[in-house]
Each structure stands twice: as structure tokens, then as C-alpha cells.
């Protein structure tokens, strides 16, 4: 009796890959079709996650540009109905002295109609509000001029007007130099604003200088909105002090809002992708997995001779098993990679069309790939075990 130990040598990773891919190389069409199912499932899931992430990224990008450190102070409602509350004229100055406040912009409502010309009846104002503007309104809102210039010291005293982009559209004005009929006289348009996402009320206004409003109209000089920017880490403290500072007489009537909050809420809902679509992707993935299992069972049936041959060459049951599990893993892994590429490409197209940043989250890519590997293992396990249990002689004799 020989005492030499009989221990089968291990197959290295490269050899495992070699035997695992042998069956795939000879049947490219079948590989393509069975990987396709997995690819469609993964592509759907990646695209669903990618599209909503891209939309969310766009909103967050916008929010980042606009900043979340702005507060708006308005007079608010009095407890006694019908009684108008007003912000004191000193409110902007007081607010600008709160520690942490960096800049302040002020508007005051002027009760005059804005019309394209005197021939248009007074009633048809189109919802356009006339506001007097002072301080660093443009800077605080981070608004940009679409065309023309903002009010300066000189133009603030004369009948010059800057239009919000909605106002300009409603009046049918596209450039500077046009005349607008306000409160019985013509004002010259010196600029039109870009959209101002943080202050939609400005978009629907016509803005004139503070002095012009006081001199030309019956404007009482009370601010109706004070916009304020502070350092990011001071927002909470400023918020705690601002009502009392703006209106020490009746701080409870003052309303303080954070316009970025609404945008943040919107960004959060954009991030929540459609569960229905995700579920469809999951079902496609499952069907793809069944397809891979089916392909593997057929592959084992077809290759019984090869299995018998490998056993006769000295392959252990474990080595036969790992060969077919590897094959299944390669099949579904290929499908997974193709699916990730497809899903990312679909997201890219969507992002390009919608002018969004192209975002495919890493967790979705790794999660998607990991799930294909899990499916590949599951789908390959049963056929592989069957292959390894085949009797070598029967496998060789099979017709």
C-alpha cells in the first residue's frame, strides 16, 4: 500500500477564470441573450436612481448657488383684523447692525399701476407690483441682470425702472430703452432681471429707486420686505433676534421666512425615486436571473461529455462546481456591467436633454453589480451541483 498522499492541486484564480469562460467563448449569441435579461434589469434600476439623483443634484447645485443663509422680514399680519402693520423705516438699518448680518436689501410697495402705455386701462395691471428698492437688494438676492443695469444713485432719483423677467414678458419688453407708463408718467426701462428663484415676488415686480418713489408718488417710505444675508453659521442666531430688531414695538406681528427651505424640501422629494419603476427593474432582474439559471442548466446538459472528460482528467467535484458557478457569475456579471453602462448612458442622455448634472451614485453601481453577482451565484449553484454530481461514466456515455 502506497502512503503517498493523494491531494488534488488547487486551481488558481486564472485557471478558474479560464475554465469558467470556456463555455461562454464558444456560444457568444447565447451569452448575449441570457446576459441581456440581467442587463435590462440593472439598466432600469441604474437609470431610475441616476435620473432622480441628477435632478436632485441640479436642485442642490442651484441651492448652493443661491445659498441657504437668507432671511426675509415682512410686516406680517396684525392680531386685529383689518389693521395694517408696518415695518418702521429704521428696520433695515437696525437689521444690518445685528451681529453676523452681512448685507441687507429693502423693497417697499408703491400703490401705483404699471402699464405698457397710457392707452391701456388702469385695471389691467397684469398682477405687476411696483416696488421701490434700496440698499444692496441685487447682491442679497444674488440676482443677475439679463440685460441693462441695476439702479444706481443717479438713476434712483429719476424715472428709471428695472423689470423682473416675468414683468418684462407680460409687458412684452425685451430690451432697455423702452417706456413704461407708471402712475401717470413714463419711466425708462434701464434693465431686466434674470429669474430670482429665492424671491419670486421680485420677478413679478417693476423696481424703481427709493427717492423717485418718495418724490414722484405718495410712497410713505416704510419697507415691506427686508432681505438679509448672514454668515452660514449665524443664521439661527440672526433669526432669533431679527423680529425684535425689525419692529421692537410689536415683534410678534413680524413674519420671518427662509425661502431656501422650500427648495430644500423639493430637493429631498426629487431624491426619492419612483418605487414603481425600481420595482419593475427588480422584476426584470429576477427574470434575467431565471434566464441565466435556464442557460446554465442547458449548458450542463449539453456539456455532459466535457464534464465526464474533465472528471477523467482528474477534476474534482468541487472543481466542476466552481467551473459552472464561475460561468454563471461571468454571464450575469457581464449582463450587470452592460446594464450599468446602459443605465448610466440613459441617465447621461436624460441629463443632457434636461441640462442636469450627470449623476450616477456609486452606491447604485456597486449595489447593482453586487446583486448581479448574487443572482449569478444563485442561478449557477443548482446547475453546478448537478454537474458535479454526474457520474463520470454516465456523463461520458451520454448520447
Amino acid at each position, binding site marked *: *500500500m502506497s502512503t503517498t*498522499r493523494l491531494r*488534488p492541486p488547487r486551481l488558481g484564480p486564472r485557471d478558474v477564470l*479560464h475554465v469558467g469562460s470556456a463555455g461562454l*467563448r*464558444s456560444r457568444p449569441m447565447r451569452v448575449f441573450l441570457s446576459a441581456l435579461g440581467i442587463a435590462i434589469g440593472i439598466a432600469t434600476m441604474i437609470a431610475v436612481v441616476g435620473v432622480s439623483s441628477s435632478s436632485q443634484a441640479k436642485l442642490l447645485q442651484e441651492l448652493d448657488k443661491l445659498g441657504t443663509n437668507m432671511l426675509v422680514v415682512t410686516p406680517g399680519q396684525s392680531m386685529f383684523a383689518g389693521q395694517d402693520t408696518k415695518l418702521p423705516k429704521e428696520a433695515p438699518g437696525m437689521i444690518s447692525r445685528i451681529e453676523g448680518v452681512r448685507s441687507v436689501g429693502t423693497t417697499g410697495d408703491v400703490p401705483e399701476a404699471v402699464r405698457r402705455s397710457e392707452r391701456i386701462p388702469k385695471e389691467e395691471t397684469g398682477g405687476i407690483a411696483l416696488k421701490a428698492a434700496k440698499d444692496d437688494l441685487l447682491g442679497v438676492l444674488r440676482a443677475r441682470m439679463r440685460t441693462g443695469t441695476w439702479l444706481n444713485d443717479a438713476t434712483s432719483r429719476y424715472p428709471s425702472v428695472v423689470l423682473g423677467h416675468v414683468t418684462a414678458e407680460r409687458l412684452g419688453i425685451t430690451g432697455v430703452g423702452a417706456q413704461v407708463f407708471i402712475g401717470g408718467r413714463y419711466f425708462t426701462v434701464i434693465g431686466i432681471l434674470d429669474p430670482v428663484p429665492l424671491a419670486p415676488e421680485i420677478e413679478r415686480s417693476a423696481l424703481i429707486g427709493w427717492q423717485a418713489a418718495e418724490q414722484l408718488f405718495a410712497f410713505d417710505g416704510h419697507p415691506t420686505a427686508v432681505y438679509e444675508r448672514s454668515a452660514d453659521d449665524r443664521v439661527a442666531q440672526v433669526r432669533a433676534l431679527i423680529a425684535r430688531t425689525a419692529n421692537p414695538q410689536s415683534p410678534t406681528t413680524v413674519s420671518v421666512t427662509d425661502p431656501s427651505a422650500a427648495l430644500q424640501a423639493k430637493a429631498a422629494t426629487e431624491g426619492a425615486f419612483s418605487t414603481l419603476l425600481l420595482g419593475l427593474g427588480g422584476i426584470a432582474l429576477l427574470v434575467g436571473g431565471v434566464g441565466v439559471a435556464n442557460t446554465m442548466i442547458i449548458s450542463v446538459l449539453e456539456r455532459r461529455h466535457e464534464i465526464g472528460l*474533465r472528471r*477523467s*482528467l482528474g477534476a474534482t467535484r468541487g472543481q466542476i462546481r466552481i467551473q459552472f458557478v464561475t460561468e454563471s457569475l461571468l454571464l450575469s456579471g457581464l449582463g450587470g456591467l452592460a446594464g450599468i453602462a446602459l443605465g448610466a448612458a440613459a441617465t447621461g442622455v436624460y441629463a443632457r436633454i434636461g441640462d442636469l448634472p450627470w449623476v450616477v451614485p456609486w452606491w447604485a453601481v456597486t449595489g447593482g453589480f453586487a446583486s448581479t453577482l448574487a443572482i449569478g451565484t444563485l442561478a449557477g449553484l443548482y446547475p453546478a451541483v448537478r454537474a458535479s454530481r454526474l457520474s463520470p461514466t454516465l456523463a461520458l456515455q451520454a448520447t
Partner: protein
Amino acid sequence: MTTHPRPSPTPPTPPTPPDPCAPRDRRTPPDRYARPVVELTAVTKEYAGGVQALRGVDLTVLDGELLAIVGPSGSGKSTLLHIVGTLDRPTAGRVAIAGHDVAALSDRALSALRSRHVGFVFQSFHLVPGISAQANVAEGLLYCGLSRAERGRRAAAALERVGLGDRMEHRPHELSGGQKQRVAIARAVAGEPDLLLADEPTGALDTASGRSVMELLHELNDDGATIAVITHDQEIAASLPRSVRIRDGRIVSDEWHAQPGRPREAP
């Protein structure tokens, strides 16, 4: 007991060499016939359904022998070959291959035994389609634990050996039947097995190809390989030094022939 064979407390032989498929010089030991490669004692094989394919076979094949196994169809020749090659286990009786008692070995150990000691040549070649002749032969070395480069090198050498040095890159469907059988033989011998088992290696070939395959087997045997060949061909059987005749699962004759023109040592 069917436990793994463990080395006895004082092993009489040194441990396994690191390269199990390394070429060995079989011609040097003076007692080359002393070592039995195959020992079957009262081997019985009964298939499910009650077919008794083998009924008490005793057979000993010594190192370096070249024998024919002949018998009518259904007599149990293939069954015998499978049992000798450890692809199947007997229902009863003892099988020892290269000194290992098969009954005492696990499936893993049997696989290792096959990869190290046994080479098969099948009647229907069983080449892997779509890959080159060299790759087919190299595939036979995969389970020996050799490196990829070494497998390729040895496969090339084995193909040279069977006279297919100029067909290395041909795929199976680009080869003639005789060439395919040579590739199958190259694959079986590339790992330098102690025992080469061929199930009707000339069955699918014409006379000329069959003769060249037999010549190749003779050459391999001259180089020291122990070879058992199943054949239907009486002429081929008569041309080999020993022929074992089997009928209905029993060995009915076991004879040695004089080898005209082939000087060989007596067993």
C-alpha cells in the same frame, strides 16, 4: 473503513514530490516489471437494473505492459476500463491502482489519482470543440496543478511526440479522425500517466489511421508507458504482447504472444 489514507507514523517513503506530473524515467529501474500498476481481485460490477457487467474479475497489469482487452459487444470491456481508471467503483472486490486501494479513497483523492496516474483515450475522442489542438492537450494538464506556461510547453511537446507538431493551432473540426485521435492520445500522455487506458482508439478510424495510432501506442509503450487497449480488431489484439479476452463479465483467456520484430523482455 473508508477513511482517507493517512501516512503511518513512520512513513516508509518520502512525501510526494512537488511536481506530480513531472516526467519520470521509467526505463532505469532494473525491476521494471516488478511493480503492479493495476490489481483487480474478484471485481464485480452490477448496474442498477440487475445487469452484471463484471462477474469476479481478477487482473494484474505490471508496469510497462501493453495489453489488449478483447471480447464481444456488451461483454463488459468498457465497464472494466472505467473501473480500472477509477471513474467508477466496483460493486464488490478490490481495486488497487498504482498501489492505492480505491475503496479507501474519497472522491477527491480519486480525482487526484486520475490526474496523476491515469490517462484516458476515448473512442469518440472527446475533444473540446472550438479550441486548438494544443489548448485541448493543455486542458488535460489543468488538474495536475501545473502553471499555464508549463502546460502549453508540455502540450506542444506531447503533440510533437504524436507527430502533430505542425497542427498545434488547428481546431478539432480542422483535423482528420486519425489526427483527432492522436490529439486525444497526446492529451492522455502529456501528464506522463503510469497507466494509459484506451477504449477502442481505432474504432472510428480507417485501417491506415488505425495502424498509425497503434504504432504510436507501441512507441509510447517502448518509452515505458503501461497501456491497456480495448479493441474489436483481432489483428490488433494479436499484435500486442498480451491479450485478455472477456465474455459475459468474465475473463475467459489471458495470453502472451511472441512479438516478432519487437524484442521485448519477458514478463
